[in-house]
């Protein structure tokens, strides 16, 4: 069973989530090829060749793929796909963007956001914000899959795969990149951090999110937010943890001033240890927290920072 995994990267480095997507692919079979499509992405290709369990790396280096435009990437993947029964991508914003386009071009369904593999055609995925878990069988000859990486442990990076350069340029010519505005942060990525501290509506305003900084510094944590905090305009949407934001499962998740709506729980309830700080003892977040403290966050945060 040959499997194509599409590498997630920014032309400079391979995203750690790809190692988890490969782990998911390994539950289907062992003949795994990694596709790196990008521009001036040699460093990514080299990192991809080291990913354990990968036999071949297909490298496609062209300006058409610099910004992972779905129109161009999907044409490339569709062309390469003929040799593979399974196509895997990571369920991050890049994979979520181009993979359904690949599936439709191949005239097959996509199974989104899988958290487990039952067999080569049967996959497990959360639905209804994780309030139900569906086991779904694909009836198509080709399986197009996106992987929610919190369900899988990363493979190691001590392999040595063969690199094959592809000279395929698929430029649809109907879309172009204008600009990126990326958040510059010294902190780890939300998806990769082992500790995440998130603020909710209880933070009251964006300035108060600074109260989380010192704790995040001490713990090496990423900072997240609930949808309520994003909706209220406290912080940008790329910090949102939840059903329609980022899905995280760190070793430690600290929820500050977050009531615990089902949409938020969907994004963090697989965390190993959950701490809730909330002044409302009835807040639903306490029902999923391992350790809760009923306190005013404006007292609790400075004290926590000083005692870490």
């Amino acid at each position, binding site marked *: 069973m040959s499997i194509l995994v599409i590498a997630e990267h920014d032309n400079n480095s391979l995203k750690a989530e790809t190692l988890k997507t490969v782990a998911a692919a390994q539950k289907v079979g062992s003949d795994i090829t990694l596709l790196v499509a990008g521009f001036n992405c040699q460093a990514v290709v080299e990192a991809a060749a080291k990913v354990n369990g990968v036999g071949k790396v297909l490298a496609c280096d062209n300006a058409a793929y610099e910004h992972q435009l779905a129109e161009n990437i999907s044409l490339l993947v569709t062309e390469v796909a003929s040799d593979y029964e399974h196509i895997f991508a990571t369920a991050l914003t890049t994979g979520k*963007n181009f993979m359904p386009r690949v599936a439709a071009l191949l005239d097959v369904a*996509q199974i989104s956001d899988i958290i487990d593999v039952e067999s080569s055609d049967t996959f497990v995925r959360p639905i209804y914000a994780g309030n139900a878990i569906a086991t779904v069988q694909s009836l198509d000859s080709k399986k197009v899959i996106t992987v929610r990486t919190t369900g899988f442990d990363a493979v190691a990076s001590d392999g040595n795969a063969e690199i094959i350069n592809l000279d395929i340029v698929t430029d649809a010519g109907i879309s172009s990149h204008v600009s990126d505005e990326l958040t510059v942060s010294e902190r780890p990525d939300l998806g990769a951090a082992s500790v995440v501290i998130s603020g909710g509506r209880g933070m009251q305003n964006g300035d108060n999110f600074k109260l989380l900084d010192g704790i995040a510094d001490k713990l090496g944590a990423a900072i997240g937010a609930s949808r309520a905090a994003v909706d209220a305009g406290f912080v940008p949407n790329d910090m949102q943890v939840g059903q329609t934001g980022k899905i995280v499962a760190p070793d430690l998740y600290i929820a500050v001033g977050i009531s615990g709506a089902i949409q938020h729980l969907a994004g963090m309830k697989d965390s190993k240890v959950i701490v809730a700080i909330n002044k409302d003892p009835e807040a639903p977040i306490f029902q999923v927290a391992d350790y809760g403290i009923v306190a005013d966050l404006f007292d609790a945060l400075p004290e926590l920072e000083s005692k870490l």
Partner: protein
Amino acid sequence: MKVLVPIKRVIDYNVKVRVKPDHSNVDLANTKMAINPFCEIAVEEAVRLKEAGIATEVIAISIGDKSCQEQLRTALALGADRAIQIDTNENLDALNIAKLLQKVVEEEQPQLVILGKQSIDSDNNQTGQMLAALTGMPQGTFASVVKVEGDKVNVTREIDGGLQTLALNLPAIVTTDLRLNEPRYASLPNIMKAKRKPLDVKAAADFGIDLSARTKLLKVTPPAERQAGIVVESIDELVEKLKNEAKVIS
């Protein structure tokens, strides 16, 4: 220009869904239903384009049984001009939904199709991208800003780590993220007016598309329940527990 807005009837986002005891699916009997929140944002964006003089007509469309007419009426009350229901009792895969929408796009020739980025029931996040593939149109997914400029639309997208702006040739597909706009409330006069707006019903079977299922739902189970832990009395106790009991900090 015409704007087409496909919408979906889903469980109300405040309602917690229950799994059926036989694990065949979730139980939606007597559950409060609503327009999918991202679809509502899509309707609002289309109506704002019309109010700005860019769109000339906003057409809402939904695929499902008769009950989805309720959500189409909501879209009409929010400002859509007319509605189309594609009637089916089947729970269609996203690919088949996209194929039906493709036929409507061919017929209506909209310059812009605005959809929600995902529905909060199946959480697939597929239909817009699939429709873009089938129609050969460019796609601006997870949009937080949509600006039509001449024969292009500039879409600012919510991506991991920040924002990305793309320029797409029209006609194009846009899927909405939550910060694109804040949908209005339908006023009572507009709700009354919506009842008289045209709503066409077409049978899914009449489109001549193979709509056979591409996936099979084998079972639906409740998620593993997380046990509530303990409430600590002080920050000192919390830090002590995290260090010595949970061992997640040092």
